[in-house]
């Protein structure tokens, strides 16, 4: 199915394509035009009672790092523009320039006295425009600056302000890919003990001994949440164990997309465990999209059917407490995992084991012990190591006033 080069080295192919693509665009990003010129010609001041020296040095430039369609205009204030002075506002005039011939100037906007910039957000890319700025006096008389040089707006292919994010993502992605390759090559990767995950086996086993059900709640968010994806992945492992132990696993879900995915997942797991016959269509079923409708539904099922083991893995909101407390009250073994900080205290309190934040994402690697998964976990750890080092170095540099290190991480322009 895949081209041969992709089959052989998929990671390498995708990443190198990505790099080439981005390099190309970052080069073209430097090719943006940035023009400015000083033109000061006083015009049309004859009839005015008070003469105002018009604004000068109208500089125009394409707005950088954008999708095009806008031009920045900047000018020197009229010397008379002081508090209580005669200038009340500036209006910005624009004309199209086609092959060197200027069209008519029309006013495109105005700003109050004291302001020296205007952003024209309504240009057509590629067309050349000439701007001038006029100071308006209280009497209504208008004093215009000279024309700017022609300028056109354009869209850029790379947002230079985001280069640090780009480098960061590339670094972390690089680590992950590197360690995945290492792991595939057979290198042993250590992973520390995670108590909550060691308990999964025991929890499934207990349900089997007691002859009771296992409930699995993959969070209440949709498939567009990465935590849900993590939850569904862990569901696969749990389903496999349940199939081996021949224990009834029930998965109530609250989103239709999750229903579709979870069904596939469980079905697959059963056939992987060699028990495709044991899989039942109704094991995974939909209740309602509504948070509390769902919580109430699951609650009712838990109280009536008294499962021996309940898993909560995924993204949760307020329903976490209802679920965990009810499960606790019937004495089920509960293992929870979520990246929702506000729900963690309840899971920590009411469940036997809780995967805190990032541990949820580590779970699928931990349970499967697949080299690829372990490798990505190691790569993720290296990302953390870089952050830890950056924290130490940065704190030292900044505390002793050597260098403002944190600007490296600045995202806002």
């Amino acid at each position, binding site marked *: 199915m895949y081209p041969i080069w992709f089959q052989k080295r998929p990671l390498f192919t995708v990443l190198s394509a990505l790099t080439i693509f981005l390099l190309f665009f970052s080069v073209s990003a430097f090719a943006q035009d940035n023009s400015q010129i000083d033109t000061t010609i006083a015009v049309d001041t004859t009839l005015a009672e008070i003469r105002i020296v018009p604004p000068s040095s109208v500089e125009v430039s394409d707005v950088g790092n954008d999708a095009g369609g806008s031009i920045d205009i900047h000018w020197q204030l009229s010397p008379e523009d002081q508090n209580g002075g005669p200038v009340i506002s500036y209006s910005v005039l624009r004309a199209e320039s086609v092959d060197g011939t200027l069209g008519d100037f029309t006013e495109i906007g105005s700003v109050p006295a004291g302001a020296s910039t205007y952003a024209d957000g309504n240009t057509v890319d590629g067309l050349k425009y000439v701007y001038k700025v006029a100071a308006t006096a209280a009497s209504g008389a208008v004093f215009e600056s000279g024309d700017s040089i022609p300028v056109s707006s354009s869209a850029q292919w790379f947002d230079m302000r985001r280069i640090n994010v780009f480098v960061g993502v590339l670094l972390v992605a690089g680590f992950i890919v590197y360690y995945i390759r290492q792991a595939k090559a057979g290198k042993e990767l250590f*992973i520390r003990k995670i108590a909550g995950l060691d308990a999964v086996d025991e929890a499934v086993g207990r349900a089997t001994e007691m002859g009771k059900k296992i409930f699995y709640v993959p969070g209440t968010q949709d498939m567009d949440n*990465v935590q849900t994806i993590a939850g569904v992945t862990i569901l696969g492992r749990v389903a496999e164990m349940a199939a081996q132990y021949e224990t009834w696993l029930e998965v109530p879900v609250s989103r239709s997309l999750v229903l579709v995915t979870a069904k596939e997942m469980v079905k697959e797991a059963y056939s992987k465990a060699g028990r495709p016959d044991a899989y039942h269509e109704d094991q995974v079923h939909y209740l309602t999209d509504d948070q509390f409708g769902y919580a109430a539904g699951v609650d009712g099922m838990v109280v009536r059917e008294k499962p021996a083991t309940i898993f909560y893995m995924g993204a949760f909101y307020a329903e976490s407490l209802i679920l965990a407390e009810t499960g606790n009250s019937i004495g089920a073994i509960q293992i929870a995992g979520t990246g929702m900080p506000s729900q963690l205290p309840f899971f920590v309190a009411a469940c036997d084991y809780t995967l805190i934040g990032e541990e949820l994402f580590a779970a699928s690697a931990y349970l499967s012990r697949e080299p690829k998964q372990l490798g990505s976990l190691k790569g993720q750890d290296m990302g953390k190591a870089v952050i830890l080092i950056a924290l130490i170095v940065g704190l030292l540099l900044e505390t002793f006033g050597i260098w403002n290190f944190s600007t490296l991480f600045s995202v806002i322009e």
Partner: protein
Amino acid sequence: MEHFAIWVAAFLTMGIISFLYKDNAWYKLSEAIFVGISAGYWFVTLFWDNIYGKFWVGRGDDAMLYIGAFLGLLMLMRLVPKVGWISRWPLAFIVGATAGFYLINYFSSNVMRQVEDTIMPLLGTDYSATTYDMIGNIVIAVGTFSGLVYFFFSKEHKGVFGGTAKVGIFFLMITFGASFGYTVMSRMSLLIGRLDFLFGDWLGMIK
């Protein structure tokens, strides 16, 4: 009608509250109504807002929306068992886009920004910080650092490293405690709101 409406609302409110006593018929009735109504509510709302509002009348001349409709149709193919496998395509699309979008969003907002804010002159610029700020800054730096160490998976938590991780878990626990306190606050407020409905709006007993 007005009287009927508020009594219906009160009846259902009390029905849910009755669960606190025990699982009973009144609660089960309220719960069943809730499941039905809420599933229907989202069903109708999503149809009018997303399919009708976004696609049917809202598409304008944006041909790209047809792609969405096409993906939606593929999704519905699941209803036809023979070609059900094709519903994996829109699913693949959504998962892929989510992965890409979240990768960037979380990296820039939660990693870059938070690291940026943790790196600061601990003693203030030009040693200007008050003792209060200084202690605070150090607490934040130490807390963030050790918390991250706790999340380190590929190294055994022993020795100095383990000690740091231990400090990290302390910070996490304080965070959970604070979160817990705020959650209690929140839930109590909502209960207050509901009891205000019962005793105030419905029975008019609150002055």
